[in-house]
């Protein structure tokens, strides 16, 4: 029994890899029938205002146009879009501020009307013929401007444009700062609006059949989409069926309900005909979601010995035009602040503010990349001010082993931060490089930077955490597994299969995970977000496997005449525990169970597990850069991320996940930023040419490493890894530039334009 083969912990190949390297994997657009009508949305060309009229006459005359729907036609059912579990408590429900089409437009690109035509070219032509007249209002793009008196107002329910303001008060900040001899360090830190840039744009199609509206969508959250389509259309939720096939990446953008309600509505307006809504890349940038731009102000009061006396954070989060995920994003970042470097006297305030920008929603890291840029840039600024090395300062102040957060009950069970920093230092030869790069002159300079990050898995106790799983035994002893948790590219299906194999005691190859979710069939689950799925699904998989195994062994008792207590299922074989003797193959048992003339039984199990725990997931980044001062360029030479995400379910896939997050972090640090036209409010660079996400030529080798500390709260010892890899990259690169040049830059991306201005200010450029 000790040598039992385990799937968990091994780098098995992805269960979907074969289909994906052969072109067999079907994504939404691949599944859509060719008879589909094409839909096209008419977007607002003003950033703030009201639609006075929509002239659809010319568009309707165009041959091939089926329907033209305007903001004046759609039902006034306001709905929320955030991919959060629903709350039956109204006070905890997401803000319902969206309509499928709106006459009160709040950003350049808001959705005003839609056309449905027999083909995409006709739809495009018709869209151009729809004439919209607006009453234009002044608009505001910047958070601070939006909070000023007299600023343009976006939502009547939120005077002053503040969606929410929350804070933390612990200890007594005002008293604590009176301590004599304290050094005050203050900084402002700015992060930009960036976009997810999943390579598959959002796409969905809808049709009526079986007395239902059927929606197939590129989404991370099918069960939530079902609920919101029901809410938006004002129809019973059971009348909505949502199918999620393979999706070409999501990164949080598809953790929002996007155009599924509109597409469903358009189909219903066309007699239930199949309608496809396929948005362009430009629309993905302008009209789906972006990462919140957050401006943070941190004041630290530090003793000369390098300990914190008191700290204060104020963060302003740019929500854009609608609430979407809203305040949760900046609030999560604020939550990290008092925990990462515990200090008895802390004040924190965060504001989420509406502006006339594209809507900000969930994006990989959910407020933590922004918070870590601020906190970890500031940490280096503080270390410099007190004359300590960045790593020494962190070791002294970072969350210690045994720390427990009173709210979430999360505990830092291990000396994770130091273990991660040790590993990164060893890879980078950190201490030597810190010394070597300490004093440099000349145009080309090198630097090494460090940043740690705080993250926690899943959303309990802020929100519901639940996972459901179904297992069905096939005649051959293989098992169909379904969970509500979704494969979005991260490898979830493979991890679930590995866990199911071990929990049940069957070979990995005998687990058939059903990748696609269909809300008519798939057990309830809220989907891919909060890096939760391996953690949460682990519980329901383990529990359901236990139930199925119990049924299998009970049936085995009938066939073997051995007591259940003497039986076990190992590698697909019923064995007798006392001597390990194989009694029966699971396939034989399953066949007998189905076809037995004396006792036929379909052996299945299904269960829900509500998760009332949460787990920290920590790590760090070290980055080495070369700065070409006069060319205003930073070249990343080397970078390592070290993560403690508990036990690795699949080391190869875990590492791949880290690479992707690091890549996204590199873009965040160096090149990515949505830019807006000050005159019109329009997104200026809403395409993959002008928006600079990294190509293969923009990366050095990406080194991903792990510290594997078994997470005690977790069914399989694992915890968050999906989002953490992006969290500490940008501040590490920023801190490396600081070491190289002595210039601590307070904003990202560290683009040549920013470096030009900063190097001028810092006297490095003689211009």
């Amino acid at each position, binding site marked *: 029994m000790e040598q039992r083969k385990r799937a968990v912990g091994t780098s098995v190949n992805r269960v979907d890899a074969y289909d994906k390297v052969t072109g067999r994997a079907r994504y939404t657009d691949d599944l859509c029938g060719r008879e589909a009508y094409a839909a096209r949305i008419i977007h607002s060309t003003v950033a703030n205002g009201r639609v006075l009229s929509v002239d659809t006459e010319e568009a309707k005359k165009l041959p091939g146009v089926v329907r033209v729907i305007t903001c004046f036609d759609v039902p006034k059912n306001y709905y929320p879009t955030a991919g959060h579990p629903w709350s039956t408590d109204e006070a905890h429900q997401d803000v319902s501020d969206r309509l499928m089409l709106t006459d009160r437009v709040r950003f350049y690109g808001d959705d005003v009307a839609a056309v449905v035509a027999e083909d995409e070219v006709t739809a495009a032509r018709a869209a151009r013929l729809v004439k919209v007249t607006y009453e234009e209002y002044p608009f505001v793009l910047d958070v601070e401007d939006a909070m000023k008196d007299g600023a343009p107002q976006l939502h009547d329910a939120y005077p002053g444009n503040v969606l929410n303001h929350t804070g933390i008060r612990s200890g007594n900040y005002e008293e604590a700062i009176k301590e004599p001899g304290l050094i005050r360090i203050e900084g402002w830190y700015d992060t930009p609006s960036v976009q997810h840039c999943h*390579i598959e744009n959002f796409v969905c199609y809808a049709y009526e059949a079986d007395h239902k509206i059927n929606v197939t969508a590129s989404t991370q959250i099918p069960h939530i989409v079902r609920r919101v389509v029901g809410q938006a259309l004002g129809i019973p939720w059971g009348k909505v069926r949502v199918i999620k096939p*393979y999706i070409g*990446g999501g990164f949080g953008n598809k953790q929002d309900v996007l155009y599924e309600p509109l597409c469903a509505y358009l189909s219903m307006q066309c007699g239930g005909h199949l309608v496809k809504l396929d948005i362009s890349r430009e629309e993905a940038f302008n009209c789906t979601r972006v990462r919140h731009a957050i401006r943070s102000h941190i004041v630290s009061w530090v003793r000369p010995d390098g300990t914190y006396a008191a700290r204060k954070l104020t963060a302003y989060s740019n929500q854009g035009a609608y609430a979407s995920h809203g305040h949760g994003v900046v609030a999560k970042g604020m939550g990290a602040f008092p925990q990462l470097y515990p200090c008895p006297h802390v004040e924190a305030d965060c504001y989420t503010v509406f502006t006339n920008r594209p809507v900000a929603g969930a994006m990989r890291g959910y407020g933590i990349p922004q918070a870590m840029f601020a906190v970890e840039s500031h940490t280096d600024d503080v270390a410099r001010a007190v004359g300590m090395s960045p790593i020494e300062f962190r070791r002294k102040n970072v969350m210690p082993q045994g720390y427990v957060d009173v709210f979430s009950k999360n505990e830092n069970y291990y000396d994770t931060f130091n273990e991660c920093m040790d590993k990164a230092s060893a890879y980078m030869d950190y201490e030597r490089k810190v010394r070597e790069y300490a004093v440099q002159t000349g145009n080309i300079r090198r630097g090494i930077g460090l940043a740690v990050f705080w993250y926690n898995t899943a959303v309990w106790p802020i929100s519901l955490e639940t996972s459901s799983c179904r297992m069905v035994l096939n005649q051959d002893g293989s098992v169909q597994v379904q969970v509500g948790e979704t494969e979005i590219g991260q490898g979830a299906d493979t991890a679930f299969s590995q866990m199911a194999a071990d929990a049940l005691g069957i070979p990995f190859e005998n687990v058939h995970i059903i990748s696609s979710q269909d809300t008519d069939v798939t057990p309830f689950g809220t989907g891919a977000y909060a890096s939760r799925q391996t953690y949460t699904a682990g519980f329901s998989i383990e529990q359901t496997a236990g139930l199925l195994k119990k049924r299998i062994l009970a049936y085995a008792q009938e066939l073997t005449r051995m007591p259940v207590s003497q039986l076990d299922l190992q590698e697909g074989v019923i064995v007798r525990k006392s001597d390990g003797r194989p009694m029966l193959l699971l396939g034989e048992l399953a066949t007998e169970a189905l076809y037995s003339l004396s006792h036929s039984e379909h052996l299945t199990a299904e269960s829900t597990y509500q998760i009332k725990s949460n787990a920290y997931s920590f790590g760090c980044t070290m980055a080495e850069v070369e700065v070409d001062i006069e060319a205003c360029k930073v070249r990343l030479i080397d970078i390592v991320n070290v993560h403690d995400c508990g036990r690795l379910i699949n080391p190869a896939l875990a590492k791949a996940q880290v690479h992707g997050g690091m890549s996204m972090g590199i873009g965040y640090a160096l090149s990515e930023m949505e830019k807006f036209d000050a005159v019109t409010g329009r997104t200026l660079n809403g395409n993959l040419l002008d928006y600079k996400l990294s190509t293969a030529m923009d990366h050095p080798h990406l080194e991903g490493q792990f510290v594997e500390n078994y997470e005690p709260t977790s069914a399989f010892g694992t915890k968050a890894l999906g989002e953490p890899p992006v969290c500490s990259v940008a501040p590490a690169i920023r801190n490396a530039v600081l070491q190289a040049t002595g210039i601590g830059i307070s904003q990202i991306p560290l683009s040549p334009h920013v470096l030009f201005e900063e190097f001028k200010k810092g006297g490095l450029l003689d211009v």
Partner: protein
Amino acid sequence: MNRSESRSVPGKQYRLVTCTINGKAVETMVDVRASLTDMLRNDYRLTSVKKGCEVGECGACNVMIDGECYNSCIYLAVWADGRDIRTLEGLMGPDGELSDIQQAFIDEAAVQCGFCTPGFIMSAVEILESGREYTREELKKQLSGHLCRCTGYENILNAVEKTMKKRLSST
């Protein structure tokens, strides 16, 4: 749609496109407005050819035409007339066996969401069939016409590099 039908549609323009797709000679009437992506996906159901940006910026629709890689989204379908086109679907052997590069993408965990994968693999095929040995930096350049948001390119480069070395050492 057959030829006579298509020509009777007023205001629309069609043209017969004869070409070789994955080794097979084929012909079909094509709307002259169609991109090669449209033709391959709609007329031949070759859905490995993905639509990511439709303006030549992401590489998801990459296919080989006469031995060179092109973004089929910005290639008119009518231009395919007389040409030899290869897509990911053509790489698999007659008995469903994978090519070495497909297997390498699996083994190196170079696949995540899979949406950029077909395009990358076709560029890898052009690299491998050149018979040249590229440095890691050169490989990055050869693959730089593809955007991937999942992998950071690391394992994709590993897959291509390892397959390249394997092929070169076996010849």
